[in-house]
């Protein structure tokens, strides 16, 4: 039957995502069931803590403000913007209020339709996920029409999104000077205080601001002399805001005024006392801190089960980041930080369970990919424990204490989601729960009498990272490794041999080399064939350069390109390749809910296959470099 009104609604919605991804018939069905509400200024669509409505909303005319704590504006939705969706997806009460800031007409779309047509549509749900992720990560894109500002549902302590509306922490004691201060003096003050801006005040009121940029554009160009007064080059008046400004508001204010610094005053006006400065950089810091909420949750956890939840959320967060094409190096840093916090907490919980205090100092080490902070997916746990040397008569007791502790820790890690290492490279194995002297001897043995097994162990154990405990123990371990290598440098050649044992994964005909037999027949082993060669290469090169404290493959290449500018291009290519491979592996792992190690090439798009192949060139080149550098031709 003809439905004139639904047709009008259709004409409106069809231009906005996610509705523009729907088929005509589907969208029409939605339009036929829209409810239309009218709101005057200050009328609430929903209020914080109100029970969930069975609909989400689209602004037809006017503007709806999203408010936190009553009256702090977090965002503004106008024509075509969606709000109230997150609470719906989370199925929880509203955590923010939606209130008309202009006279508004709002369409309400029932939640049953959302599920039936929108979240089931690939493009539409992609838009929704992307919008959720971008709410805090890419605010600049947000001015596009048809955004999703449904922040209000997502604001629980457990997500990064809270950061977006949290009050920004600003610099409390701003660097200031008077109007008659000489520019040179002000610049000296800025340099001393290590700040990028200085506020010019009069009677404690902000009058103007000078930033690094002013010094570059006005002084360095010779337009003004450093003996001129700051008042001659300052930007004035300044933009002022009040203390409890949210990140969103601060961002909007900066964008609107095209500035990078806001002055915070007592009552938010130019005519009150200056209390702080908020820079764009502060905002970036505030936002990159988002996962800190997960870390806070880790700190509050009381059981391994609690931690398992956090870990799951971290995986969700990572998924969103990857969908959003956030650089994988950034993502892995965050995930590693969270995993490390979880491990730390697990150790604290386990220590509480032990009836007595540790007999001496100890350090918990993560190994392999965890040690290199390249762990994105939850994989097996590889860890080790080192404790300080004790008198011989106390040794047995001490060792059994730490074995018991390690047992508790590995058990809890397993509950969190880190599966036991099938090769038992874990601290609860008496072989890997050793005193400092034992470790030193162990490493010395591996280095001075290398065989295939020992080299293999070295590649795992040399990539350790301290997670918990005494720093000095680790420093001494590291020191002993470099001393031994110094004396038996032939070890590096063995390590180098190992690094090139996996050839670039392309056959003579430039076909992918896939597994020929076994469970993973015809699958491509991205870990062994593509990632490990790069990891191994980075390790041996770094060790040969005597570089300490660089366990991460990307950081290792970065350091190498610093030290060897002549090979910079190659190392950069290796970094790019490694990033691509890491992303591939993670995305595949998320898709198949496994380690992502084995990839079905047939499932890859042609462009992805080419991308993957593109990484192999760097592997070939770096292996050539290693062959030459370590004279491997002679050894082969």
């Amino acid at each position, binding site marked *: *039957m*003809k*439905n*004139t*009104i*639904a047709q*009008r*609604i259709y004409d409106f919605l069809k231009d906005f995502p996610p509705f523009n991804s729907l088929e005509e018939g589907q969208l029409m069905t939605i*339009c*036929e*069931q*829209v*409810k*239309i*509400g*009218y*709101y*005057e200024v200050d*009328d609430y669509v929903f209020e914080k803590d109100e029970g969930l409505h069975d609909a989400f909303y689209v602004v037809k*005319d006017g503007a709806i403000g999203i408010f936190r704590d009553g009256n702090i504006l977090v965002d503004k939705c106008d024509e075509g913007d969606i709000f109230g969706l997150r609470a719906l997806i989370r199925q929880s009460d509203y955590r923010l209020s939606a209130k008309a800031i202009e*006279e508004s*007409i709002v369409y*309400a779309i029932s939640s049953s339709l959302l599920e039936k047509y929108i979240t089931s549509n690939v493009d539409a749900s992609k838009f929704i996920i992307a919008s959720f992720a971008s709410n805090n990560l890419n605010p600049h894109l947000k001015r596009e029409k048809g955004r999703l500002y449904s922040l209000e549902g997502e604001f629980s302590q457990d997500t990064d999104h809270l950061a977006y509306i949290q009050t920004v922490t600003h610099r409390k004691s701003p660097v200031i000077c008077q109007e008659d201060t000489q520019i040179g003096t002000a610049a000296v003050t800025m340099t001393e205080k290590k700040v990028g801006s200085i506020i010019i005040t009069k009677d404690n009121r902000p009058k103007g601001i000078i930033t690094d940029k002013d010094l570059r554009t006005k002084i360095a160009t010779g337009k003004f002399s450093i003996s001129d007064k700051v008042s001659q080059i300052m930007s004035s008046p300044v933009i002022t805001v009040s203390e409890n400004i949210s990140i969103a508001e601060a961002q909007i204010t900066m964008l609107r005024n095209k500035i990078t610094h806001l002055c915070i005053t007592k009552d938010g006006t130019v005519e009150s006392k200056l209390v702080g400065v908020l820079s764009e950089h502060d905002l970036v810091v505030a936002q990159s801190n988002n996962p800190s909420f997960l870390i806070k949750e880790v700190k509050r956890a009381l059981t391994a089960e609690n931690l398992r939840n956090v870990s799951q959320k971290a995986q969700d967060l990572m998924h969103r980041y990857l969908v959003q094409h956030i650089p994988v190096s950034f993502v892995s840093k965050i995930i590693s930080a969270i995993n490390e916090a979880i491990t730390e907490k697990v150790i604290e919980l386990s220590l509480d369970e032990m009836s007595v205090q540790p007999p001496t100092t100890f350090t918990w080490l993560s190994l392999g990919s965890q040690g290199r902070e390249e762990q994105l997916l939850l994989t097996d746990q590889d860890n080790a424990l080192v404790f300080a040397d004790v008198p011989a008569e106390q040794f047995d007791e001490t060792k059994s204490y730490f074995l018991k502790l390690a047992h508790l820790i590995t058990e809890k890690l397993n509950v969190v989601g880190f599966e036991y290492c099938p090769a038992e490279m874990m601290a609860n194995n008496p072989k890997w729960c050793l005193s400092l002297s034992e470790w030193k001897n162990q490493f010395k043995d591996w280095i001075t009498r290398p065989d295939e097994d020992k080299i293999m162990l070295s590649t795992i154990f040399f990539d350790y990272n301290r997670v918990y405990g005494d720093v000095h123990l680790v420093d001494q371990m590291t020191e002993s490794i470099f001393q031994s290598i110094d004396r038996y440098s032939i070890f590096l050649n063995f390590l180098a041999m190992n690094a090139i044992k996996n050839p670039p994964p392309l056959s003579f005909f430039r076909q992918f080399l896939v597994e020929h037999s076994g469970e993973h027949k015809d699958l491509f082993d991205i870990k062994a064939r593509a990632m490990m060669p790069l990891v191994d290469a980075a390790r041996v090169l770094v060790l040969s350069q005597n570089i300490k404290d660089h366990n991460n493959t990307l950081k290792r290449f970065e350091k190498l390109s610093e030290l060897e500018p002549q090979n910079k291009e190659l190392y950069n290519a290796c970094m790019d390749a490694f990033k691509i491979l890491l992303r591939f592996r993670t995305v595949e792992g998320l898709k198949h809910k496994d380690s992502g190690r084995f990839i079905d090439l047939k499932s890859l798009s042609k462009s992805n296959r080419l991308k993957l192949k593109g990484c192999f060139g760097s592997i070939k080149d770096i292996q050539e470099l290693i062959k030459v550098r370590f004279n491997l031709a002679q050894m082969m």
Partner: protein
Amino acid sequence: MFSRILKRGKPEFWKAYTGHFKEKLPQDLHAVRFVVFDTETTGLDVRKDRLLSIGALSVFHLKIDVGDSLELYVKQEVFNAGTVGIHGILKEGGLLKLAEEEAIITFLGYIKNSVLVAHHAAFDIAMINESLARMGLPKLKNKVLDTGVLFKKTTLCENKENRHSLDQLCAIFKLRQHDRHTAAGDAFLTGLVFLKIVSNLSRSGKLKVSDLFFNSERRGLL
């Protein structure tokens, strides 16, 4: 067919319709189902002219529910070529059309005991009542609100004596006009005007259903 209906007394659909009025009207505005409607007719003579179409939608919880709307087109015996230019409905258009009787039965089944809302309601109500009379039935039993009258109670009305057309109200309320002079389009605009009026009247305190009828019922229905 009509004679048969008359002989047997009131038909089933009428009994069903009147049955809904046993329930008392709630006082909470959110609990009342309003039906906002508009008719297009072959002309303005209630006796001679006929219904061309009825557009209606419900307002519940003070929200327009597009899912609960009605759009009917009526087959014509009487045809007034002069008004085609206004409403655009031809005698034999491509639309699915119902006989007048079917249209009225559908309409009654839809409105039930809801409060009817229309702009200059008297005319639309009179047209429906005239159709009912042709079917040998009594007048509509629903309470009726006229947005033209309601508007005069708002703070936005400057001259209480003037009659305000729907066009004028749309301008005052800054409503973009779509589909004017189709029953559904006008019903939709009337619905928005109604929501805006209720919102305006609510400013001075909690508005009850009876407040809407105060002083307006006396005017009668033409």
